[in-house]
């Protein structure tokens, strides 16, 4: 089985291009056209067991979201679909993960900005048509197209930067 690093689709071995999103599968993921990760070392909080860069995400895994300039990481236990944004009483919008207290308003986070989707073996991030976009490792996501998230990835909602780490028990 070859899991597409872009969309998570399960391709048969021997395939050179993803049967779903058309991205090349034959290149070494390390050399794919992703910009260099800008990882800030926050080693104290990282679980020593987590293997950096993995895309595998099992039922026991949880996620730590390290938001830049925020001391305490946010711990998340992803559900099938977890919306991310900022709450707004006027429109009665309440995302599952509310970033209001992290300066979401001034950093251009939409009310319903993105979502983390958990599938059987991986975690994907999807932009839900946000005004200022969602970036994964510097690449802007096309709305409604899920991308596989790997341990240590940089995610940007508008101007709000966060790093995501997997924790496996």
């Amino acid at each position, binding site marked *: *089985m070859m899991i597409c690093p872009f*969309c998570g689709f399960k391709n*048969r*071995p*021997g*395939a*050179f*291009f993803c049967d*779903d*999103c*058309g*991205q*090349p599968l*034959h290149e070494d993921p390390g050399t794919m*056209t992703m910009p260099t990760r800008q990882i800030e070392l926050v080693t104290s909080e990282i679980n020593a067991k987590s293997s950096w860069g993995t895309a595998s995400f099992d039922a026991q895994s949880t996620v730590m979201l390290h938001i830049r300039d925020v001391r305490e990481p946010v711990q998340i236990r992803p559900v099938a679909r977890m919306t991310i944004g900022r709450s707004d009483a006027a429109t009665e919008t309440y995302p599952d993960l509310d970033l209001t207290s992290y300066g979401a308003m001034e950093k251009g986070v939409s009310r319903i900005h993105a979502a983390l989707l958990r599938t059987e073996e991986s975690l994907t991030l999807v932009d839900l048509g946000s005004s200022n976009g969602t970036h994964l490792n510097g690449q802007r996501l*096309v709305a*409604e*197209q899920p991308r596989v998230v790997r341990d240590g990835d940089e995610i940007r909602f508008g101007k709000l930067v966060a790093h995501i780490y997997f924790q496996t028990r």
Partner: protein
Amino acid sequence: MGMKDTSTFEGIDLYSMLGVAPNASFEDIKAAYRRAARRLHPDVNRNNPGAGVQFQQITVAYETLGDTDKRKEYDKKSQQHADNLHFTLRITPSKRRITSLPEPQVIYLLAEVFPDARASQANQKRDSRLNLCLVLDRSNSMNGPRLNQVKVAAHQIIDQLGEQDIFSLVAFNDRAELVIPATTVTDKAALKARVSMMTASGGTEIFQGLEAGITEIRKFLAPRLINHIILLTDGNTFGDADKALDLAKTVSKDGITISGMGLGQEWNDRFLDELANSTGGSSSYINSAGAVVRFLNTHVRHLSNTFADRMHLSIAPDPDVKLESAFKLQPNAQPLIIDQGFVPMGSLQKGRSISTLLQYELPAKMPLGFRSLSRIVVIGDILGERIRKFQAISDISLEITSENVNEQPPSAILDALGKLTLYRMQERANDALEKGDVRQATRQLENLALRLAAMGESELAQQAKQEAQQVAHTAALTDKGKKALKYQTRSLLLYAENNEDNGNGDS
């Protein structure tokens, strides 16, 4: 193996089968045979019937080349054949060594047929004579520049043809009208005058036109000729599509090929594809009236440059292997229907190859060692002083290993697959729309736009993006966008030299 059958002898080079040079010494031949036999011997490949076939082949080769008298006779015979023109079949697999896995896996083969290089140099004289019928749509929608351009194209085609060629022309709307009955091309002015009289009116009923065209072709039908119909339409045919397809399948058996050309946006692409595919012809999209003349002319010029006609491809995978799809890359890009024994491939032209990309599924848990994957046979009639049936055979074998193979696929396969993936994405978007899955269709088109942009096809990427938005809002593609994405992703597969004859005419 049919090795003793001289008709297949021609295509099989015993020296290359053993991997030795034609001037190899007896010792070299013996050593080469021993090496190959160790690899392929049935005793070491007990669970591998494919190896048995391979072993037989090299044994026959050794029996011939290892015996001084037999080798002399073989050399003499192949020297005689060497003067005959032939075509060659070259197979390139995506991987030669495969890791045995607990799950099924895919493998790709590039099958290329090359005409004899001497054919394009030797004599400039044309070997192929045409029996050509133009079946032209003259429905109301053709009125104006379209019909005018078609007339110009027909005039130029008449100019291209010679006294040795047969030409006929049928115009159709709701019914067929025989404008030029099948005739040798002698009085060109008279023929052209008749073309000029055509006027546009009425609807589009393809079956009638096609049937009348076939009647004309049959008047002179002969294996000596390239019997070809060019159907040009700008509209959907009503209610008679199935009848037309049945007719096409019947005439294909008699060696008649049909090429379908759609002009503008309103014609039925699936119908025209199937019509052409079932006879070995090509189907193409001409996106503007202005492109018609050059397009038709190029098509006819290629036809009259035929080296071998009535080419057929047969693919026999091993019992545990599944052939999943076949896609013709050259000389025109289109999917092949593989649910028949011999797939019609049309004509092989001088200096141009026919190439096909095949996708197979290999079973899980393959035993280690050498095994065969598939046999591929190409047959065709080589035109010349006389017609000769010729066939080329290739048995593809692979090495199954427990090691983790990290082999880069040949760039020709990778390149073709990358582009074929794009074509399939727009097909999937269409399929999703047919099932009413707007979200999936939008996603496929957005992904397509991303890939096209990454490959530097910015114009087409833009079009895919627009269609994605269109689909998201209206749950349908525009007619123009649908055709453009389909035929232009296809034409990406062609080498630059003959892009001109695969739609995208006025770019």
